[in-house]
């Protein structure tokens, strides 16, 4: 299932835009825009989403190229991690207070 938004009927496809605010940070989704192709999409993203120095790097991805998890299976899909408390450091209480652990 692709990301919502691309209707497949518009002259210019929809692109999802991701911006890296600073070195050391991930690219974060900021929104979408229309552009005829990838070259123009990255330029439009620069003009639209970094007018105030918000970024040092941009990704653009065709909206219909993004695959999302199935929302209707949401409960089941993300159920498994619940209960596996041993994956978290706070689970291990006996070592509390011991330095460098």
């Amino acid at each position, binding site marked *: 299932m692709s990301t*919502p938004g691309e*209707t497949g*009927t518009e*002259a210019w496809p929809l692109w999802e835009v991701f911006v890296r605010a600073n070195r050391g940070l991930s690219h974060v989704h900021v*929104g979408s*825009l229309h552009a*005829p192709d990838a070259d123009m999409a990255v330029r439009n993203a620069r003009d639209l989403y970094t*007018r105030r120095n918000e970024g040092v790097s941009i990704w653009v991805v065709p909206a219909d190229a993004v695959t*999302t998890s199935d*929302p209707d299976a949401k409960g089941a899909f993300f159920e498994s991690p619940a209960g596996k408390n041993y994956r978290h450091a706070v689970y291990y209480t006996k070592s509390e207070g011991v330095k460098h652990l």
Partner: protein
Amino acid sequence: MTAPADLTVVENEAAQARFDDLIAQDSRIEPRDWMPDAYRKTLIRQISQHAHSEIIGMQPESNWISRAPSLKRKAILLAKVQDEAGHGLYLYSAAQTLGIGREEMMQQLIEGRARYSSIFNYTTPTWADMGAIGWLVDGAAICNQVPLCRASYGPYGRAMVRICKEESFHQRQGFEILLELMQGTEAQREMAQDAVNRWYWPSLMMFGPPDDESPNSAQSMAWNIKRFSNDDLRQRFVGMLVPQAEVLGVTLPDPNLAWNEERQAYDMSEIDWTEFHEVLAGRGPANAERLRRRREAHEEGAWVREAAAEYARKQALKQQSAA
């Protein structure tokens, strides 16, 4: 992108319960979530109207970019109008996650089938209108918009956060335009007061009809789209304006405006809603002109959009055959 048709009644009820639960927890609804059709329709209508308002709202101000009286003011105004184009785009992009294309929204707008904020159907005959729009119209818009940052639909709320941050300069620059005028020559002061007189009432109308005549408000509040009632926001706005008007030295054009200690609220004159409905119905001073300009830009740009799409198609073919 409505719910798949083969969803059984039971599944539908479960989905509705999950939706209700998220709303009750004041959590967020995200694009792929199941949502009631009415919720989706309300949001599409509201977000696209909001986007149209940004796009049409560029026009009354762009009217003065070429004649701005100093280069600094020209740069500020151009940046502001450009921001409005950006805000329209953020909002169209949020609406698009609900399953409507921008081209379709644009067609609704230019064919006169969609609404936008009627304030932009007033004209801007003087430079002081740039000040009054910033101070009053953007001020009212910000009052309306800040609570929308918490709207239950995720993409809408996120777009509004970005918009509110960027708009903080819009109201200030308007205030400073008026301040400069009020500290200037007699002619400049008159220009400023005249603009405030013309924009004050329309800006109060931006909050919408009184609560008891606002049929959709209750549902929007139940869905956590709207957080405060029209009259509450209007009161809050007037409360902010009064001291600001004193700083400016302008008079707000309402002889009955006074603080009512007992009600802990401002008393004010009755708003002329006949005018509001006239403008809303398309009989404002500039309705036709605003739509004409938007339609022309869209139609005259068609050959450019087609050229770029065709070029992209040819390039893709070239790459395919080269591979």
